[in-house]
C-alpha cells in the first residue's frame, strides 16, 4: 500500500539538506519497524519518495512524501509509530492512503506557497508597499537564469500566481504562490531578488517558509492530500 504523508520541517531541522532529510526519514522508518518496501538491485533502498526539495535553511509546513509498504497497515498505526521516531524539528502533520498506481508525487506538483520575511533597511512601510505594487504591475519581469552550461532571460511574471505583501517599516512579509515543478519553477528568493533590483534597494531575506504544495487539476489547485475528483461533466467538455 502507498501512504502519503505531510510533514513539517521546523526551525530545529532547517539546516538538514534535502538528501540528509531523506536519510533521516529512512532511519526513522527502520526504527519504527514499519514494513517498508525496498527497491531491487545492488543496494536496496526503502521506497520513500519526496515531492519537492526544500532549500537548506528554509522551514516548511508542507513537505510531502509517499511511503510504499509491503503489507497493509492502519493509517493511524503508521502515523503513531513514525511520529515516535522522527527527530527534533520534523513533525508528521497528516497522512492518507493513495492509490498504488497513482503518479509519482514529484511529477504532480505545479505550485508552491511561500511566506518570506525580508528586511529593507531605511525603507518606510508605505514606500515598500508602493514599490511592490509597481513591481507586480509590470507586464513582464525578466530575471537571468544561470545553469552550468548556459544563461537565459526568463519572464517570471506568469510564474507568480498570487502575491500579497504585509509591509512594515524596514521590510515586510510576503505571501507568495509560485509555479513549482515541471510546469515551471520559480523560487521565492528569485522573486525578492528581482524586486530588490527593480527598486534599486539593498534587501536581505531573513526567513523562507513553505506553506503549501499544490497539484493543478481542471484549473483548480489542490493539496496532494486531497483526492482529486473529476468535476461533473468535466470529462465530456474537455
Amino acid at each position, binding site marked *: 500500500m502507498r501512504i502519503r504523508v505531510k510533514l513539517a520541517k521546523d526551525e530545529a531541522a532547517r539546516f538538514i539538506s534535502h538528501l540528509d532529510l531523506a536519510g533521516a526519514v529512512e532511519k526513522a522508518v*527502520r*526504527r519504527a519497524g514499519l514494513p517498508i518496501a525496498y527497491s531491487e538491485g*545492488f543496494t536496496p533502498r526503502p521506497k520513500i519518495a519526496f515531492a519537492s526539495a526544500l532549500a537548506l535553511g528554509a522551514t516548511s509546513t508542507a513537505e510531502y512524501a509517499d511511503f510504499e509498504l509491503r503489507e497493509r497497515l492502519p493509517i493511524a498505526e503508521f502515523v503513531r509509530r513514525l511520529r515516535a521516531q522522527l*527527530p527534533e*524539528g520534523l513533525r508528521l502533520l497528516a497522512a492518507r492512503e493513495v492509490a498504488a498506481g497513482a503518479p509519482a508525487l514529484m511529477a504532480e506538483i505545479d505550485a508552491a506557497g511561500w511566506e518570506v520575511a525580508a528586511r529593507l533597511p531605511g525603507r518606510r512601510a508605505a514606500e515598500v508597499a508602493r514599490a511592490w505594487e509597481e513591481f507586480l504591475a509590470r507586464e513582464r519581469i525578466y530575471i537571468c537564469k544561470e545553469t552550468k552550461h548556459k544563461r537565459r532571460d526568463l519572464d517570471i511574471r506568469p510564474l507568480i500566481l498570487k502575491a500579497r505583501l504585509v509591509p512594515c517599516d524596514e521590510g515586510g512579509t510576503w505571501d507568495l504562490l509560485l509555479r513549482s515543478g515541471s510546469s515551471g519553477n520559480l523560487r521565492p528568493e528569485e522573486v525578492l531578488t528581482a524586486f530588490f533590483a527593480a527598486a534599486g534597494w539593498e534587501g536581505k531575506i531573513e526567513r523562507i517558509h513553505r506553506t503549501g504544495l499544490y497539484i493543478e487539476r481542471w484549473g483548480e489547485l489542490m493539496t496532494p492530500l486531497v483526492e482529486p475528483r473529476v468535476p461533473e461533466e468535466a470529462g465530456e467538455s474537455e
Partner: protein
Amino acid sequence: MAQLLKTLEEILPRVEKPARYWGGEWNQVKKDWQAVPIHMALCFPDIYEVGMSHLGSKILYHVVNARSDALMERVYAPWVDMEKELRAADLPLFSLETKTPLAGFDLVGFTLQYEMTYTNVLNMLDLAGIPLRAAERGEGDPFVLAGGPCAFNPEPLAPFLDFVVLGEGEEVLGEILDLARDWKARRGARADFLTAVAAVPGVYVPAFYDVAYRLDGTVAAVRPNRPGVPERVRKRVVRDFDKVTFPERPVVPFLDVVHDRVMLELFRGCARGCRFCQAGMIYRPVREKDMATLLAQAEKLLKNTGYGEISLASLSSLDYSHIAELIDALVNQYGTEGVRVSLPSLRADSFAVEQARKVHEVRRSSLTFAPEAGSQRLRNVINKNVTEGDLLATVETAAEAGWNAFKLYFMLGLPTETDDDVLGIVELARKVANLKPQGGRITRVTVSTSNFVPKPHTPFQWEGQVEREELRRRQLLVHERLKGKRLEHRWHEPEQSFLEAVFSKGDRRTAAALERAWRLGCRLDGWSEHFRFDLWQQAFQETGLDPTFYANRKPAAGETLPWDHLDPGVSKEFLLQERERALSGERTPDCSRERCSACGVCPALDIPIRRRGETK
C-alpha cells in the same frame, strides 16, 4: 545564549554543510544545564564528519551522560568558512547540544587521534577564548584535558594541557568527574583540583614534571617536581570488557559522515604483534566480548538508530574467537531486513574470503588487504605474518567468488628497506593483477603506499623516518613502474608524513613550533588542500627547532625518550627485544594463539593471561 543563536542563524546559511554546527540529531542528549553540577565538553579536533565516526567519542558521550550529576556535549573543529564567520562575528566556539560557549564548561576534553590535528586543538581553544597555555589559565577557566592514542606521547601539546588521560577512558573518566564534582561543590582552588586529579591512576599532569635536556639535545630525565606524583604514569584498561558500559543509543548524524553505520566493538587490543603498529602495543591486552553480549548490543543498536549497516569494528575483527558464528547470526537475523554487515579490512587467508562472502551477499565491491611490505624478508622484519602465497591464493579465491577490484596497502621507508623491497611491491601487485582466476576476473588493483612513521611505545620507536627526498624517490620508484591498465597507485605526500613523525616523537620543545605554525595560519593540516608545508618550515626556523632531530634521528637504545615516563604496560625490555628480533628477521608469534611473548602487559595491569576464546 539568545544572542549567540541569533548570530548563528545568520551565519549558517552562508557556510558549507551548516548541519555540522547545528546539533539536534536523533539520540542527542540535551540535559538541563542548571540541574547538572558538572559540565564537560568533548572536543574532536577535526570536522564533524570525521569526529562523528569515532567510536571512542560515542562511548565516552554515553558514559558521562549516563550519570545524573554530569553532562557531556560535543564540539568539532569548524571548517575554514565557519572559522572565518565565527571570527568575523566574534562568536565563541560552542557546543552542539545547548550552544554553550566552550569556556563555560568545567572540563574541556580533546581526543588525540592523529598528530596532524594538533593545530586544530590550539585553534579550537583560541576560538573558545580559552588561554592557550595551561599556565595562563585562571580560576574561572575550564580544565583542558586530552586522551586517545596520541596521549601516549602528549609532550608536543604538554604546555597547552592541564592534564592527560592514558588508556581507556570509561572508568577513569568517572573518577575524574567525581573529583571535579566534589571540588566544585567546595569551591576549591584550581591547583587543588590538579593535585587531586594527579593522584588518579592513569592521569598525567604535565606541569608536575620537569624535563632536563643534555647538550646534544636529547632528554636527560623527566622527573616529578613535587611529592605524591608518580615517577611513571601507567595507562588504564577496562578489566571486564564484556561488562563495560556500551552506548546503546549513539547519536545518529544527519550528515553523511565517514563511518555512517552501527559500530559493534568485538574486542579491544590486537595480539598479532606488528612491530610498526602503535595501536597493537598500547591497546594490549586482547579482551573479547561474549557473543551473547554482542548480539544483544547489535539488536539494540539497530533498533535505536535505524541504520541499515552494521560494521564489526575492532583492530582485526576476523580474529574474534567466534567470528564465523557471529557473522552467521547477524546475517541470518538482519540480512532479510535490508541490513548489511561489513568488515573494515581483511587478513590474507581463505577464511577471510569465506567471511567476506557471507557479509557481501549482493554487491562485490573491492576487497582490501594490507601486506604492508613488498618482500618476505621485510614482512618478517615488521612481523606481518602474511606470505606472498597466502595473498595470491586469497585474491584468487576472492576473484572466483566474484570480486574483481582489490586494494593493497603498503608502507615505504620501513626499517632496513632496500630498493629490492620497494620493487617487491610492484612485483607483488603485478602478480595479483596477472592472476587468472577461473570464472572470475581482476579488473583493478589499487596499490596505496604510505610513508612509515616511527611511533612511540613500539619496537620501532628507536628508528628514524627515512628522509623526505629519499621517501619521494621510493614513491616514484613504485609509481613509475606501476603503470599498466589494471594497476593504480596512490601515495601520501612525504611532507605530511614528516610532520607526523616530528610530532609523534616530539618532546616539549616542539610545542613552540606547533604554536608558531598555528599563529602563521596552519590548521586542518590533515586535509591536503589546507596543508602548508612552507609555513611549517618557517615555524621551525623561527623557533630554532630542527625537525629532523625528531623525525629522522635514531635514538640510542639507552637514551631517555620524551615519553618514557608514560607507561602503556608493555615493557621497554620487550620493545627492545622485539627490535632486535626485527633486525635479525625473526618473527614473534601471536601471543593469543601460540606462546606468550612476555610483553609484560598482563602482569603489569594484573590481568590474567588468556588464550583466544577465553573470555572468563
